[in-house]
């Protein structure tokens, strides 16, 4: 656990790996979680989103990492919302009516497992009054997106949970089993773009936008047949019946979203963010664009290739380019230490007069 000298302000970093863009690191089953763990050891506060921290059955609680849903992260980056850390959230579980009985039981048992074995606080669960109706698509860019036929049923279910005392919402929607066979096979090999990811983001965004509460989503899917060639990067999603445990673990301590009028000594705001680490080819999201407008240092990681080609230079964003996440961690360590990163290399040119 990093210590904070009284005279220093906390070093705050935001790690962004957008979902549904085939990110080489983080585009699979929580495979950016090791990056988050390493960064969390160097910074005082790490803010990141469910796609980074969710590994289905696998997760890693970090006392200085904040689990912030993507829509909430965008609002935070824009300065519209602040983050208020909590000790504990009561989680409301919202299950899609379309989930068949056996699969629904698996999710309820996963919920009971985290209640008994992790001590998480869950409210009585709600089933949506209609099937959610998830639709998947792939856009011209190669990114995956999705739409929802009945967003109203999600919002009504979430409202019921919040009125019953829930402080964070875990949504489980039934996703189609008959997706693109080639895309699924690629994903299981740790290649290509996650066909489900874009739709998942839309589901949680709907709830966060409406209710301003922490939310995360786990897809309900039928189990896949054994594949001995399964990639390690995708393996975490094939060791259990659900994708739910990581979502419940993350939501249990996800920070509340607060308005600028509710600033306290403990709330965190975008102008306190020292660094935002993003894939170098995926700089066009709302969050990155906002961070790029203030004093946050954008660190663009080249090794984390995606299906996009939206670089900081193309958008006029001033960024430090690094090859790898290891190098990004080095940049932040130097920044936090007050050291010019150039002084760490073998050659330093003499100081010049200004022009």
């Amino acid at each position, binding site marked *: 656990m990093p210590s904070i000298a009284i005279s220093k302000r906390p070093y705050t970093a935001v790690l962004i790996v957008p979902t549904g863009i085939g990110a080489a690191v983080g585009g699979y089953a929580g495979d950016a979680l090791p990056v988050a763990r390493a960064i969390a050891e160097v910074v005082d506060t790490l803010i990141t989103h469910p796609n980074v921290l969710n590994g289905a059955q696998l997760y890693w609680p970090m006392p200085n990492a904040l689990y912030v849903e993507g*829509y909430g992260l965008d609002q935070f980056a824009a300065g519209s919302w602040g983050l208020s850390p909590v000790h504990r959230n009561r989680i409301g579980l919202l299950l899609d009516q379309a989930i068949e009985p056996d699969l629904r039981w698996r999710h309820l048992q996963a919920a009971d497992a985290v209640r008994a074995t992790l001590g998480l606080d869950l409210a009585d669960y709600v089933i949506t009054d209609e099937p959610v109706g998830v639709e998947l698509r792939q*856009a011209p860019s190669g990114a995956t997106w999705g739409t929802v036929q009945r*967003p109203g049923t999600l919002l009504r279910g979430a409202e019921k949970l919040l009125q019953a005392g829930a402080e964070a919402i875990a949504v489980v929607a039934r996703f189609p089993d008959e997706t693109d066979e080639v895309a699924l096979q690629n994903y299981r090999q740790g290649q290509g773009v996650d066909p489900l990811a874009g739709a998942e*983001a839309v589901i949680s*965004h*709907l709830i966060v936008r409406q209710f301003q509460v922490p939310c995360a989503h786990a897809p309900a899917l039928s189990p896949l047949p054994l594949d001995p060639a399964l990639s390690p990067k995708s393996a975490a999603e094939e060791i259990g019946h659900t994708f739910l445990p990581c979502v419940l673990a993350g939501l249990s301590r996800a920070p509340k979203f607060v308005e600028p009028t509710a600033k306290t000594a403990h709330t965190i705001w975008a102008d306190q963010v020292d660094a935002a680490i993003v894939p170098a080819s995926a700089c066009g999201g709302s969050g990155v664009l906002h961070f790029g*407008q203030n004093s946050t240092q954008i660190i663009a990681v080249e090794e984390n290739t995606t299906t996009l080609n939206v670089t900081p230079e193309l*958008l006029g964003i001033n960024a430090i380019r690094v090859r790898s996440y290891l190098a990004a961690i080095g940049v932040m360590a130097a920044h936090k230490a007050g050291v010019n990163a150039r002084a760490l290399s073998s050659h330093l040119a003499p100081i010049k007069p200004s022009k």
Partner: protein
Amino acid sequence: MTTHFITAEIDLTETPEPLSKAVEAELQKRGEPLRWAVTQVDEATQTAQVEAVVTADA
């Protein structure tokens, strides 16, 4: 409420305002923005392609 996947094009040279504001304004013409990103930039024409999901009241 309904959700819709849409694409839009933003002229990067047109306004001095931040790109995020220009994108939100363009998307607001089609619905309430829910999720969006610039997914392609044409350097020659200085245009940005945006992919987005917006919501509309049914």
